[in-house]
C-alpha cells in the first residue's frame, strides 16, 4: 500500500472515530471503547510476541494489574485518573521487567507455559489480598457508601477529586460521559499505536525482529539481546496496563473474573487474528473479537471460548500472518503479476540452487 493511501485511510479512520459517538447510542459507544482497550492490550502483546517472538499467554495479568492499580489509587487514595494511569503503567513496566528477566533463560513453549502460570496466578492473588482488592466480588470505582453526601461528592468529583465519582466528562466539553470516555480512549490508543509504530520501524524494531528470527545473527550484529528482550517485555506489560486503565475507567468495576486466563487468550486471539507482527493487526483483531463476543448470546458466554479457540487454531494453520498477513500476500502477488506484465523482468541474480531455503542458524 502506498504511503499516501495509508495516510488517507488513517485520516478516514480518525474522522470516523471522531464522528461516530455523535450518531450512535451510549451502549454502542461503550462497545467502541471496549474495542479500544482490547486493541491497546493486544498491541502490547503483539509487540512482545509478534515482533520479538517471546510468547506470552499471561498478558491478561498485566491488564488486570493496570486495572487494579487504577481502582485502588483512585478510590482509596483520591489520585486523579490520569495520574493513576501513569503510576499503573510505570508499575506494570517494572513488573514486566521482573517477569522478563527469568524469561531470558526460557524460550518458546516453556515461556508460554510460565506466562500461562502468571495468567492463572493473577486472579488467585487478587482474591488472597482481598482487603484492598475486594476479593472475589471485586470493587467499584465509585464513591464508597457512607463516604459522604453523594451530591457533595458529585460536585467535588467534577472539581478536584475526579476519581471519587467515576470518570466523568468535564462540563466544558458538552459531552456525555460515554462520549468523553471514548474520545479520551481514542487519543490514548492513538498515542500508544503511534509510539509502537515508530518503535517497530526503527533500529530497535529491526533488532526485535532479528532477535525473534535469529538470535545469534542479532547478537553478532551488535544487538544487546538480553537487554532488548527484557525492556520489550516491560514495555509490552506497560502497554497492556494502559489497556487495564482503560478497562477500569470504562467499567467502573474491577473484579478477578475479568482477568482470568480467558482474557489472556482473548488478547492472543485479537493479536494473532489481526496479524501479530503488524501495527494495525491488534486493532483489527480487537474489533473482530469484540464483535464476536457481541453476537454470542450472553447465556452461552462459555461458548465464546470455544469460538476463540477454533479461531486461533484456524488462523495459525491457514494464515499465520493474520488478516494483515493475508492482505500483504494478496498485495505482493498483485505486484508481482503487474511487474511481470509490464517489464520483461531483470535477470534475477541467482545462485545454482534455486530451491535452497535459508538455514536459520549457524552450526558449531
Amino acid at each position: 500500500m502506498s504511503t499516501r493511501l495509508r495516510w488517507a485511510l488513517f485520516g478516514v479512520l480518525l474522522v470516523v472515530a471522531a464522528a461516530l459517538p455523535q450518531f450512535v447510542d451510549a451502549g454502542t459507544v461503550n462497545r467502541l471503547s471496549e474495542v479500544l482497550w482490547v486493541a491497546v492490550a493486544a498491541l502490547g502483546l503483539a509487540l512482545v510476541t509478534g515482533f520479538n517472538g517471546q510468547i506470552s499467554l499471561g498478558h491478561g495479568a498485566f491488564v488486570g494489574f493496570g486495572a487494579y492499580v487504577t481502582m485502588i489509587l483512585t478510590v482509596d487514595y483520591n489520585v486523579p485518573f490520569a495520574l493513576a494511569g501513569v503510576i499503573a503503567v510505570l508499575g506494570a513496566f517494572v513488573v514486566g521487567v521482573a517477569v522478563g528477566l527469568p524469561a531470558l533463560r526460557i524460550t518458546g513453549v516453556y515461556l508460554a507455559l510460565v506466562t500461562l502460570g502468571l495468567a492463572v496466578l493473577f486472579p488467585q492473588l487478587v482474591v488472597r489480598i482481598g482487603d484492598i482488592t475486594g476479593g472475589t466480588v471485586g470493587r467499584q470505582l465509585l464513591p464508597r457508601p457512607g463516604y459522604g453526601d453523594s451530591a457533595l461528592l458529585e460536585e467535588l468529583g467534577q472539581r478536584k477529586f475526579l476519581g471519587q465519582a467515576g470518570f466523568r466528562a468535564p462540563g466544558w466539553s458538552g459531552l456525555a460521559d460515554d462520549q468523553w470516555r471514548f474520545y479520551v480512549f481514542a487519543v490514548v490508543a492513538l498515542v500508544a499505536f503511534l509510539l509502537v509504530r515508530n518503535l517497530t520501524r526503527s533500529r530497535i524494531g529491526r533488532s526485535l525482529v532479528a532477535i525473534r528470527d535469529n538470535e545469534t545473527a542479532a547478537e553478532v550484529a551488535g544487538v544487546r539481546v538480553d537487554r532488548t528482550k527484557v525492556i520489550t517485555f516491560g514495555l509490552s506489560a506497560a502497554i497492556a496496563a494502559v489497556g487495564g486503565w482503560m478497562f477500569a475507567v470504562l467499567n467502573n468495576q474491577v473484579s478477578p473474573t475479568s482477568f482470568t486466563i480467558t482474557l489472556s487468550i482473548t488478547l492472543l486471539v485479537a493479536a494473532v487474528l489481526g496479524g501479530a507482527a503488524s501495527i494495525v493487526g491488534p486493532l483489527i483483531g480487537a474489533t473482530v473479537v469484540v464483535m464476536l463476543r457481541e453476537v454470542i448470546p450472553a447465556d452461552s458466554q462459555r461458548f465464546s471460548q470455544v469460538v476463540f479457540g477454533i479461531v486461533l487454531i484456524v488462523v495459525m494453520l491457514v494464515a499465520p500472518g493474520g488478516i494483515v498477513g493475508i492482505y500483504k500476500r494478496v498485495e505482493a502477488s498483485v505486484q508481482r503479476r503487474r511487474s511481470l506484465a509490464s517489464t520483461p523482468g531483470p535477470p534475477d541474480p541467482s545462485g545454482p540452487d534455486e530451491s535452497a531455503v535459508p538455514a536459520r542458524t549457524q552450526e558449531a
Partner: protein
Amino acid sequence: MALLEVEGIGVRFGGVVALDGLSFSIEEHEICALIGPNGAGKTTFFNVVSRLYEPTEGSIRFAGQDLLSLPAHAIAGLGVARTFQNLALVPGLTVLENVMIGAHARTSGGFWGSALGLPVRSAERRTRDDAMGLLGDLGLAAVANRPAAGLPYGTLKRIELARALAARPRLLMLDEPASGLTHAEVAELGATIQRLRDEFELTVLLVEHHMGMVMSISEHVVVMEFGQKIADGTPGEVADDPAVIAAYLGAAS
C-alpha cells in the same frame, strides 16, 4: 602490529578438544585464509572470535585490545563483522533491513528515542542510504525490498556479505563464502573480496574449501587439522608443506 593476535586458544566441549593451542596473527589489510579438513575447528574459531563460544584457554587481541574481555554484542562495535557458513539472515525483514541490521553497532537510537521518532529519523535515513549503496555495490539493488527468505542461495550469501560490510568493520570474517556457488560465481567472488578489501580498507579472514580461490586471493594461509595449526605461511609455502599434503591427501608413511 598485527590486527588480530591469537595466542594459545583452546576450546573443549566436554571431552572433545575442538581447538588446541591455536596461535597465529593477521596483519592489517591482508587476506588471510583459514583452511583445513572438515572438523578441523575453523568455524569453532570464528565462534570464539564472535564470543559465541568461551575458550578454555588462550587470549585474542584485536588491535591491541583484549577481545575476550568483551561480550558478544560488543564485538561488532569493536570492528569485527562476519558471515555464517549456513547463513544467519532474518527472514522476517526485507533484504534492505537485513543489511541495516549490520549497522546496528555503529548507530544509536534506543527504545525511547525510537518510539518518539523525531530525533532519529535522519540517522535512520543515513543508515538506509548506506545499506542501499552496499546492495547496489554487490548487485542486489533489485531485491532490496523483497523479504530475505526464498531468494536464491547465492543471493542470500551476498546479502550476508552486505550486512557484514554495513558494520564498516576492520576485520571481515567470511565463513565459506564460496560454498554452493557456481564456478563463474566463485571467480567473481574472489575478485569481489579483493575489491572490497581495497575499497573498505579491510582485513579479511576467510574460511574456505575452494582451494583455487584461496590460493589466488590470499596473502597468508593458516592450515588447521584436529584443532591445531599445522602450517602457516604464504600460499606457496603452505602448498609445499608435507604436513599439509598429508592432511589433505592422507599420510604417505
